[in-house]
């Protein structure tokens, strides 16, 4: 799976978007170690204000909850957590180092920031996956602003038509940016969609500059 690899956006926008996944390796540490995967998820969710989290068999922050994920005995292959700033990410990487659970962890986001976070806690990254972008008939793609939202779901389950509809509805005052972003997040089945970033993009596209922390008004 490459689903957190090709997130669109400029460096400033990407600086608040760090999906993290933990995974067991088939044939090496898969059996009997589901608890380790859950421990990583539990630590992340209980200690940090995540934009999203989830596992593909149980659900996400917007379709399930941590309790269900902890209780589930079904074998989930991967857990996901979306961090929103470098400080939380750095502290979490420190937690992972200290817990020493032996499972693979992959962080997506700005390379410069991730490498810096690793340096601060003394981790040495092993392998890197670069995105060389989209090739082929790129003229068929929707606008960059729409792609910045839809590529937050790597399985392409967030429809560009739905994003466009919500932009129209936000402009008409029918729905708030945050509500629209959360409804978009519900379409992502593995918990990597970042609705905080999506709301910010929607607000910018619609020419609104009101922070969600400032109250219900949208200008």
């Amino acid at each position, binding site marked *: *799976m490459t689903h957190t690899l090709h997130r669109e956006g400029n460096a400033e926008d990407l600086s608040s978007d760090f999906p993290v996944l933990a995974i067991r390796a088939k044939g090496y540490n898969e059996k009997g170690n589901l608890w380790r995967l859950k421990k990583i998820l539990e630590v992340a969710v209980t200690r940090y204000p995540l934009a999203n989290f989830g596992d*593909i068999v149980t659900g996400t922050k917007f379709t399930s909850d941590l309790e269900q994920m902890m209780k589930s005995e079904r074998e989930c292959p991967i857990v996901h957590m979306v961090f929103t700033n470098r400080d939380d990410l750095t502290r979490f990487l420190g937690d992972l180092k200290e817990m020493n*659970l032996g499972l693979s962890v992959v962080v997506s986001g700005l390379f410069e920031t991730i490498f810096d976070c690793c340096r601060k806690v003394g981790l040495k990254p092993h392998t890197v996956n670069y995105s*060389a972008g989209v090739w082929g008939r790129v003229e068929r793609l929707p606008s960059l602003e729409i792609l910045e939202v839809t590529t937050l779901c790597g399985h392409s389950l967030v429809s560009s038509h739905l994003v466009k509809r919500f932009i129209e509805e936000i402009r008409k005052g029918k729905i708030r940016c945050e509500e629209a972003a959360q409804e978009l997040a519900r379409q992502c089945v593995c918990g990597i969609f970042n609705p905080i970033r999506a709301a910010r993009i929607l607000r910018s596209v619609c020419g609104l500059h009101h922070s969600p922390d400032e109250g219900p008004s949208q200008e």
Partner: protein
Amino acid sequence: MRGGRGSGSWRVVREGEETEMIIREELCIGCGQCESYCPVGAIVPTNEKTNRGKERRRIDLAPCVECGTCLRSRICPVDAIFQQPLEWPRTLRAAFSNPLTEHKSTGHMGRGTEEMKTNEITHRFVPGEVGVTLEMGRPGIGATLGEIERVTRALAQWGITFASDTPITSLVVDREKGLFPKEVLGERVLSAIIEFKVPVEKLRSILSGLQELGDRLTTVFSVGVISVLPEGGDDPIVGLLREAGINLRPNGKVNLGLGRPLP
């Protein structure tokens, strides 16, 4: 997969158990809420109207990739969205497009392998070689397997060996020619990953060939390059790609090297 509004949590569907998505027109009230949820625009008006003069919707099965989004969204207020049994080769649409469908070929949900995610343990990629992932149809355009076969054919001609354990490789019936079975070529998927690795010195020519091929396709593909980081130094792959005129995004994925074999 959810069974409908108000039902329990998601259920993982195995390949072969999938069902064709339809809207039951006799139930549809023509509210149109579902239309924009479809990632490929396959939900369309029927030209038939309800008693209240609203146009009913149907799913156009040709572009529909069986991703399950319309049903999972629970957006239909009258539960008119249903799934019907799928038959081969349409089953492939769900296998590649619905992340909750488990592939028979890999026994896993997902379109690819663990690739770089567990590389510190598996050493699937070692220094001196790079991994390449071509995610056909992504983002959001989709692709037919016939279109994807055009790429596997070209890669086979260039001497590429496909990663052995991926859903796409399981479809290749002739690895020397990169051919899929003829009966699957018309099937349409939201995305599918072609995965392989090459020696570093071959990367530039392969990517250059793919750029040329991309211009002749009718869809898009997202390109990923995987590299093991050298001890304490900059990755030469970045410079190599830059020299080839290939711009890398400032963001990507980093394996932290925390994994190890466990009892």
